[in-house]
């Protein structure tokens, strides 16, 4: 846990320096006549982040914060697997939206998650995986007129638009 605390703080410190560098692309000082420069606000806030990171590192080194005193692992093997399956399946789903449309991606995601992670019977899995995209389509596209991305599957939806819109 202590190593994770230190690694996160060091990573965030580097990120703060990057934010300061990006903010400094705009003036960070006082511009006569127009007040503080455009980069001043994020620059000094990022500097504040950096100071906090240093404080977190110091506290972790001195074992003053609870995570730095804990002897438990940051993530055991089982948690790591749950995390990788959860976040990984979401990343794949979001990637698929561009190819097989949001509705297709949702269908594939629900089939995978309900069947292989939740171990639900096929009948329930199939019912939920099919009904959810259909309900979402009617709610978002027809009722609220929010068009979700279709990717390469766009032509498949044109007949539906002709009927319902």
């Amino acid at each position, binding site marked *: 846990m202590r190593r994770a605390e230190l690694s996160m703080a060091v990573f965030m410190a580097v990120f703060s320096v990057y934010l300061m560098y990006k903010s400094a692309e705009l003036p960070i000082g006082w511009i006569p006549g127009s007040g503080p420069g455009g*980069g001043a606000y994020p620059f000094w806030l990022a500097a504040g982040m950096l100071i906090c990171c240093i404080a977190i590192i110091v506290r972790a080194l001195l074992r003053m914060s609870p995570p730095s005193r804990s002897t438990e692992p940051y993530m055991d093997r089982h948690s790591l697997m749950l995390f990788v399956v959860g976040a990984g399946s979401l990343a794949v789903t979001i990637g698929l939206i561009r190819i097989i449309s949001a509705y297709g991606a949702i269908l594939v995601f629900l089939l995978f998650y309900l069947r292989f992670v939740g171990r639900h019977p096929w009948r329930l899995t199939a019912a939920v995986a099919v009904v959810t995209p259909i309900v979402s389509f009617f709610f978002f596209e027809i009722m609220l007129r929010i068009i979700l991305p279709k990717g390469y599957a766009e032509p498949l939806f044109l007949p539906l638009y002709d009927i319902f819109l």
Partner: protein
Amino acid sequence: MEILNLLADGFIIAFEPQNLLLMLIGCAVGLFIGAMPGLGSVNGVAILLPLTFIVPPTGAIIFLAAIYYGAMYGGAISSIMLGIPGASTAVATTFDGRPMALKGQADVALITAATASFIGGTISVILFTGFAPPLAKMALAFGPPEEFALMLLAFATFIGLGSDDIPKTFFSIFIGLVFSAVGFDIISGRPRLVFFDIPGFLHGINFLVLAIGIYGIGEMLWTIELSKGDVQMSQATLTFRRLLEGFRNVGQTWKATMIGSFLGYFVGILPAAGATPGSLMAYGVAKMVSKHPEAFGKGTAEGVAAPESANNAASTGSMLPMLTLGIPGSPTTAILLGGMIIWGLEPGPRLFVDHTEFVWGLIGSLYVSNVFALLLNVLLIPAFIWVLRLPFTLLAPMIYVLCMIGGYAATEDMHDVWLMLIFGVAAYLMRKLDYPMAPAVLAIVLGELAESSLRQSLIISHGSPLIFFDRPIAGSITVCALILIVLPLLKYVKVFVRPKPAQP
């Protein structure tokens, strides 16, 4: 007396069958839209505004105001049941609503939210009716320094009262504020913090993307780990007796509800403030004055009552400057204002004279809508409870789907869906190390307003920060905020300075 006559006329208009039906539909639609993660009153009012052209302006504003109210009630539902704020106005409701649901008190939390919303809504409509013009004048005295001082106080309540790790709380606030600065510099108009030149950052980081990432995806990853993937979310039951118990509980939260109602109403009146800062501040102040501040964040009904009464009160409050001055108090009222112009009405002081029927019809309808929203909400609680009792492996993927669609619907940009996933993963990893997440969400919501009020104030004072102390209102708020920030810091310094006790 004249006001009472006008109000009676307003009630007659509100009780016309067509208007009653519009209120009922509006409340139901609003409740549903508000409960959807990612969709709030703004979305509901914006999406349904074109539908209102088929009814007269009075019916139209009654319908939209009912949606606004319904959405304010509905926002609490997903905050409590799923731990994801349905809208920014319900962010503060998650702080205690979610822990209550996890403790098996979802029904109590929902009833508290509904009744607090009702009381907040009713008190604010009464204030709206009686004290509209003088209060509007008072809010006009708020300039940028006062606004910034209020923001500072909102952040300070998190630092001064949170029991979390102080450097991590500061870090969370700072990173949220930096993210709110992504996009364009408001004064020079130049692109700012466009990471790796990805064009998606040009439109800034929508707070919903961060909120859904943290409270949707991050929360799910966290819950799955805690439950090892196969336990039910919480054991929620609802019987008539528990329902009555829930109502009885309301008496214990009256102080928080009153704070929320009055604070929310006043913050709602402030132009460009609205229900979100109102509910966050009400939460902070209720925590400050509570006899058990340590219970906040762990699931106390007071922590639900304060923000819920405040966001309803603020939604009424924000209509006041819209009607009297033509200045919207919140994003939703900005859209309502647009609607009024389309209907051929001119918002401003003349509206109360020229279109009394419109104004008082709306005010009358606010009383009635409030009752409808409460009834619908309480009647639907069993349905919400049923959702909670579904197996978690069924609920989790559905929430993920809602997050993905909600994240997209907020800005209609795939870039934001990816960003939401990154925020969710980062929030999960950081939360395991005790980084508090709520301050980051508060910061990204208030960040833009905080920056513009800070810069405007500094321009007014030619760079002197004394402007936040010179003016009486700003000065007293700033001093309160500074005390709240400095006190816990002193505690830290003491730990470092104090010599270690000698070893025996």
